[in-house]
Structures are given as structure tokens and as C-alpha cells.
């Protein structure tokens, strides 16, 4: 917890109404301003109490406060540093430790996720039982999506017209295993827009979950491996279609700051969110009409952490026949926030309910979300509200459908 960064906060409170936990509970210590105050107390020598750790754990890390802050406080860096301190100094309850061990042994590893397919299908039916065992297990069962058949992507997808760029594609862990059709659509869209897409088969986790949970050493390990993988693939730009992964990859140079050689390698690798990259590249492929109403969901790690708000909307608006609708309170997190909905299921459910209500009020045919965590969270919240299965697609899938002239009715339908 860098005291200089803490001192940047002038206590104006502009962050309060943007903070999901302050919106829920109306307490100072569950607001960014209050949490920064708690960090200050710890830096000044107050030991990390259970209460303090609880307020840090309750932060979603959505970074809405970073967007709102006129003083430029780096809350993103502060909460990352704080989470690492919590990991080092705070002794969690045994059941919390067990759940955390399970999650961090599972999610960053694609093969292990693949092995979860059958248990997940059973898990949904056993949700009540799992909920009794532990609320976090219940949350996992509730969130589990219908997983489609695996899609094998080739190591190289060639540009389908004059080549304009050569990029790497991060396939991600949860995205790759639970939403493989999104990666396939991403590769097709990039190829149709004139990009050679390099998809290194051996790529692992980017380290987002570890980084956002204070597991510094693990995050650095994943970061170095990911950098090396794309260096070997010979690309300078990596396109990422999962908001959380993109935001952590953009932070690699800071994550590896203690190691100048690696930090330099991190800086040499350019990370771009898919929408951001396509907007910079400019469209050349023909957009075919897609008569569908779409509600666009701002993933926090895209809108707040990466400042990517306009680009996905522009891409969607440019599709003939597509009507774009805004979701009220779009800057407030849906409660997914990486592992938050597993570790803090109650708060996550409250936020999910709030989001589901507003998403449904938009009355669109299709919800578009550019982060797998949000997709699962909102779908689960809509199910919980008794409104059945909401159709959710990634920006890439919508573009893919337009470029290939597909029936929009197929978008966001489950493909078990």
C-alpha cells in the first residue's frame, strides 16, 4: 500500500455513488474513500483486523471509482497492493481457505476446467445441496453455464482479404472452455477484416484472477509465461476478447515492475481489446443487415479499467438493422467481478438482481457482453428472477453473424 498513492485521495467523495457496495450498504468503510482511509490506517500502523480485511474483500475491484475520481487516485494499484497484503497478513477461516484453494487450483487451468464439464452439469441439479455445504459452492453451481462442445482452433487463421495486420489471440481459460464459440467468432471476424490471427496452442492463463486476488507471485508467473508465449508466436499485438484478461495484460509492465528486463518485454507487447483493435483498424468487410435489438452491457474491466466504452457501441451501431439500447445504471458492476460472485455470493446476488432488473427493462432481444464472467452472472441472475434463459452473445459473435449474413435468431441460444 503505497503511502504516496493513498495521499492522492483528497476525500471529496465523488467515488461514493459509483461504488457498488456503497450503493448496496451506504457505509463509509465499504466505499472507495473509506477503504483508502482504512489502507491509510494500516500504513500508519493499525494492524490488519478482521473487519478491515472484510471491507477490502468486499470490494469488487470494478474500478468505477477510478473513472469517477477527479484527483486521479490509482485505486486500481492500491487495491491490488492491498489484496496482496491481505493475502500475506490475514488468516482466513478454514472454509474460506478451502474454497479459495479450489478456485485457484481450477479456474486458471483449461484442462482442469474441461474435466469439470460433467460435474458442472450435475452441479446445477445439486445446487440446493451444494448451497447447504457452502454458499460459495452453491454460487458456483448456480453460475455454471451450459457448456457447448469444444471448438478446436488452428494455430493460424489466415486473413481472408488483403492482409492489414498480424495479431495474436488470447483464448483465455473460462472464455476458451465455457464459450469456445466466442473465440471462433473472434478469429473469423479478425480474418474477415484482414488479419492473420496467430493462436498459440500452448497458451495458459493470463493471470487476471491471481492478480485481482492479491496472489502476486502466481500472477507474475502467469504474466511471464503469457509474454513468452506470444513472443515465440512472433506477434507484437495481442487481441483479447475477455475484459478481465485484457485489463490485466495491459498491467503487465506494472506487475513485473520489480524485474526491469521482464517489464521491458511486457511493454513491447501491445494488448488490445477486440473492440478497441477493430475500431483502430477501421472496417473493410461488408456488414450485412442484422435485424435485432441489442442491449449492451459495460463490463467493468472494459469500461472502467480500459476505458473502452464507445468502440463496442460504434461497432454494433454500424451493423445495418441493429438497434442498440442502453441499460440503466450501466456503470454499476453486475457482481461477477472475477471470483467475487463465488467468494462473496450474497453481495454478488444483490448486485446481480439489480442488474438483471435493468437488463430486462431494456427490453432487447439480445444482451451483448464482452466478458465471460458477466455473461454467466447476468444469465444466472435472470434465471433466479424466474425469467428463464436470457440470450447473451459477445460483441464478436454479433459482428461475426453480420459479416457472414447469419440469422440473428441463432445468436445467444444455448448450444449444448
Amino acid at each position, binding site marked *: 500500500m503505497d503511502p504516496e498513492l493513498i495521499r492522492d485521495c*483528497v476525500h471529496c467523495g*465523488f467515488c461514493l455513488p459509483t461504488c457498488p457496495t456503497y450503493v448496496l450498504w451506504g457505509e463509509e468503510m465499504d466505499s472507495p474513500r473509506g477503504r483508502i482511509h482504512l489502507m491509510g490506517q494500516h500504513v500508519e500502523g493499525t494492524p490488519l483486523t478482521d473487519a478491515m480485511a472484510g471491507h477490502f474483500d468486499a470490494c469488487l475491484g470494478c474500478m468505477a471509482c477510478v473513472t469517477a475520481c477527479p*484527483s486521479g487516485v490509482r485505486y486500481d494499484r492500491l487495491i491490488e497492493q492491498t489484496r496482496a497484503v491481505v493475502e500475506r497478513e490475514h488468516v482466513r477461516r478454514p472454509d474460506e481457505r478451502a474454497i479459495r484453494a479450489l478456485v485457484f487450483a481450477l479456474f486458471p487451468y483449461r484442462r482442469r476446467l474441461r474435466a469439470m464439464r460433467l460435474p458442472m452439469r450435475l452441479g446445477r441439479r445439486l445446487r440446493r445441496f451444494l448451497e447447504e455445504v457452502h454458499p460459495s459452492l452453491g454460487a458456483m453451481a448456480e453460475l455454471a453455464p451450459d457448456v457447448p462442445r469444444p471448438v478446436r482452433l488452428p494455430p493460424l487463421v489466415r486473413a481472408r482479404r488483403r492482409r492489414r495486420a498480424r495479431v495474436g489471440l488470447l483464448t483465455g481459460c473460462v472464455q476458451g472452455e465455457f464459450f469456445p464459440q466466442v473465440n471462433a467468432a473472434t478469429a473469423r471476424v479478425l480474418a474477415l477484416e484482414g488479419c492473420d490471427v496467430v493462436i498459440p496452442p500452448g497458451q495458459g492463463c493470463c493471470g487476471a484472477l491471481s492478480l485481482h486476488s492479491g496472489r502476486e507471485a502466481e500472477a507474475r508467473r502467469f504474466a511471464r509465461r503469457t509474454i513468452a508465449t506470444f513472443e515465440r508466436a512472433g506477434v507484437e499485438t495481442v487481441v483479447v476478447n475477455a475484459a478481465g484478461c485484457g485489463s490485466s495484460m495491459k498491467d503487465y509492465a506494472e506487475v513485473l515492475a520489480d524485474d526491469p528486463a521482464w517489464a521491458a518485454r511486457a511493454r513491447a507487447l501491445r494488448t488490445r481489446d477486440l473492440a478497441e483493435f477493430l475500431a483502430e483498424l477501421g472496417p473493410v468487410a461488408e456488414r450485412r443487415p442484422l435485424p435485432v435489438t441489442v442491449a449492451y452491457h459495460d463490463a467493468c474491466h472494459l469500461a472502467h479499467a480500459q476505458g473502452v466504452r464507445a468502440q463496442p457501441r460504434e461497432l454494433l451501431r454500424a451493423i445495418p438493422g441493429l438497434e442498440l439500447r442502453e441499460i440503466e445504471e450501466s456503470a454499476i458492476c453486475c457482481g461477477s467481478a472475477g471470483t467475487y460472485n463465488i467468494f462473496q455470493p450474497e453481495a454478488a446476488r444483490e448486485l446481480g438482481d439489480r442488474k438483471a432488473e435493468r437488463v430486462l427493462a431494456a427490453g432487447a432481444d439480445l444482451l451483448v457482453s464482452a466478458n465471460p464472467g458477466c455473461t454467466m452472472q447476468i444469465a444466472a441472475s435472470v434465471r433466479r428472477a424466474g425469467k428463464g434463459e436470457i440470450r447473451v452473445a459477445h460483441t464478436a459473435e454479433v459482428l461475426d453473424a453480420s459479416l457472414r449474413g447469419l440469422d440473428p435468431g441463432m445468436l445467444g441460444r444455448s448450444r449444448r
Partner: protein
Amino acid sequence: MSGLERLTERLAAALPPDAVITDPVRLRTYECDGLTYHRATPGVVVLPETAEQVAAVVRLCGEHGVPFVARGSGTGLSGGALPRTDGVLIVTSRMRRIVEIDIPNRRAVVEPGVTNLAITEAVRERGYYYAPDPSSQQVCSIGGNVAENSGGAHCLKYGFTVNHVLAAEIVTPDGEIVELSAMDAGYDLLGAFIGSEGTLGIATKITVRLSRAPEAVTTLLAAFTGIEAGGQAVSAIIAAGVVPAAIEMMDALAIEAAEAAVHCGYPAGAGAVLVVELDGPRAEVERQFAAVERICRDSGAFEVRVAATAEERAAIWKGRKSAFAAVGRISPAYIVQDGVVPRTALPGVLAGIDRLQEEFGIRVANVFHAGDGNLHPLVLFDDTVPGEAERAETVSGRILDLCVEHGGSITGEHGVGVDKARYMPRMFTGDDLDTMQLVRCAFDPRGLANPGKVFPTPRLCGEAPGVRKGAHPLVEAGLAEQF
């Protein structure tokens, strides 16, 4: 066992389970509001959800003789919500329901924790808005606005909070829930309550006036090489009979800060910018706009920009509205001052501020609601440099002296709070202050509602005015401490 401890035990029974905060680490997060210069850890914090709960807490405070302080979003800039270490901090952040929106009668009933902007957001689609607009409007609570009689950029034309509150349900210092209304016959108690800074009770429900959104709004940004030319333009605009919705001025340092924070894109090389907003019927706005543009150019504006879209207007305002917090980008610490001078005295006061900067080696950024002479000098300092905070504090106080000397006031809209209580005698005589105390004592004879604020010396109610009781002169002078 102290009164506070006995009281704390009973609070739990009067409130929902998680509404009483006693953990010392949590309590400290409430130690200050938007003015961090003054800090005090509250004895206990409560988060009531209803007026009845507020009343119950206040009654318990009365029974145990424990002082209480109300707080909304904690954005105040005069330390009005500074807690008492021996008292209860009553936080209204969970009382944030919009109870009723009554468009035909152009009013809304809201709980005190509702933010200022949330009212406008709730009625915007129907063509209405809530007029007073403090720069912190997205976060500051309407309860706090009532306590401080908050203003904002658009108060030049539309008036302050007091002009837009029609009624309030309040909890009196003896724990009674009463209704005050602008329609009441007899004394204007609502008027007395608004701006009383928590010393006459706590508002628990507020009926606000909703205003019709104007047909046309035009915002222009005029850049000048120096602040004098900008000041001349302001006087000329008002003299021409134009009452803009807002006229705001920022000097070079304030522009630099805003630019660093929100990249508002103000004209390069500007020594001062003027933001003028005109609103009303389209024909009138167009006519006034022509006049204002001409006056700005005649006064030496080297660039005049007009916001063509809502986004451009928002960009112009963003620079101005984030100016206070944005100063955090160019200085480690700062004091936001709030003073008023007659418009005509602006040049003299600004020259005086310049002299203070030189004399004390302290930088001052100036942001003002220029139309009504409300200055917000931002006194910058580095709190790690020994002595600099004290020098900044001196400069800040001297600026208020300048305001008073020029026939102005020590506060325009931030309130007196704890920060300016000591400056009250520079504006008022002992008799004036005693008379104000009589009003306070009529509401709060035991002095439990936000004691230590507004008035320079605590004086016990029921005593004959003029007889000094309270802190010993040595305590006041900081030479002794009372335990």
C-alpha cells in the same frame, strides 16, 4: 460507565442489527468530511433507515446528555459534519428513497440521503430538474444541502437551496418529529432551519420544488489573457441587464488542474476562462447570447467557443465542476476557501490575493461563481513541508479578511461549520452572535445538536446573553487543554 457507553448499549435495541458502528477501525473512516483539516473519531456511528429511528436516537442522546452530529455523504467543506468524540454521528446514507414525485404540483418528496443529482435524474425524462447544483451534486446529499443551504453555479439566476425547498420533516433536538412548511403562517421556521448546519435538528424528509427544464440552453467558453479582463466582462454582462444561468471564472492555475484531471480542452494560453450559460425561451437566449459574445470580445476575449451539443456542454462544465478535486493533481494538499465579495470589488480582492501569494510563498488557484461574487480560492500547500500547512491556513484566513474588508462575507455556500466559527466575530458583533444563540436555544436548549459549529465559543443556553461562559481563554488560545 460514561453516558456514551450507556447510550451505545441502548442504541442497538432502537436500530436494525448492523446500524450501530462501534469498531474503532470502522469509526475512524468517519473522522472527517470533505474538509480533512479537522478530524475527530466519533464516539459511535449510527445508520438509521427511518425518521422514527433518527428520532429514537436523538431522544436517547437527550436522555443521556450526549451530543449528536448529522452527516449525509460527508462532502461538506467547512467541517459541518465533523463528529464529536464524545457523541453520536447520525449518518443518513441509508435514507435514500425518493418517496414521491408529483409532477402536476412540481415537487418531489425525498429522504435526506438522496443525492442532489438523483432528484434531477428521476424527473429529467419528464422535462424537469432540481435547480440548485453544487459542484458535488452527484454525491452530496439533499439533507446536507438543506443543512448548509447549498448553492451552485446556477444559483445566480435561480437561487439557493432555501428557494427550492417547500417543506421538511425534521427531528427536533428533543426527538420530536415535526413538519415545517413554507406555507406555514407565522414565523418562517423552515427558512430558519435551512442553513442552520445541523444545529436546529435533522431533516428526515424534504419536499423540493421541481423546475421546468428551459427550452434552450447555450453555454459559451470565453478565454482571456488575464483575470482582470474576465472580471470586466462579468461586470459588463450584468450591467447590460443579462442574468445568465451561470457565470463561472477560473484562473490559470485552476485551468491547469482541471486540464490535468479531465482533459477539458480549454483554450491554450488562457490566463482566465469564463463559462457563461444562458437558458430560457429560445428567442431570449439567442438575443442574450449575441450580447454576451460581443461583451466578451470587447473585454478582450481572444477565443469564444460555443457548445454545439450536450456533450460539448458537459465537457465545458466538467472542467469547472471537477476543479476542486482536480487540484489534487497539481498539489499534495489544499484548502478550499469560500468567500463572497460585491462584484465590483473583485479586482481589488484578487489583487490582494496576489499580494498574499507573494508574501507567504503559497500558491492560490481561483475558481469563482463570478456572477454573484462568490470566490473559491484554492490554497495549495505541501503538508510534508514543515510550516507550509500553517502558512496556507494563514493565507486562507487573510483571504476572508479581504472579503470582509470589501463588504463581503466569510461564506457563500459552504457554511461556517467548525472551520469558520472563529471568523464569525470578524463579521458580527457580540450582540449579533448572542441574538443568533437565542434562536438556537429556542430549538435546542441543551445544546446537544452539533455543538461546536457555527459559533466561535460554546455558550450554554439559558444564560443571559453577553455573559461569557464556555471555554477558558487559555483553552481558546491553545495554551491549555481541558480534560
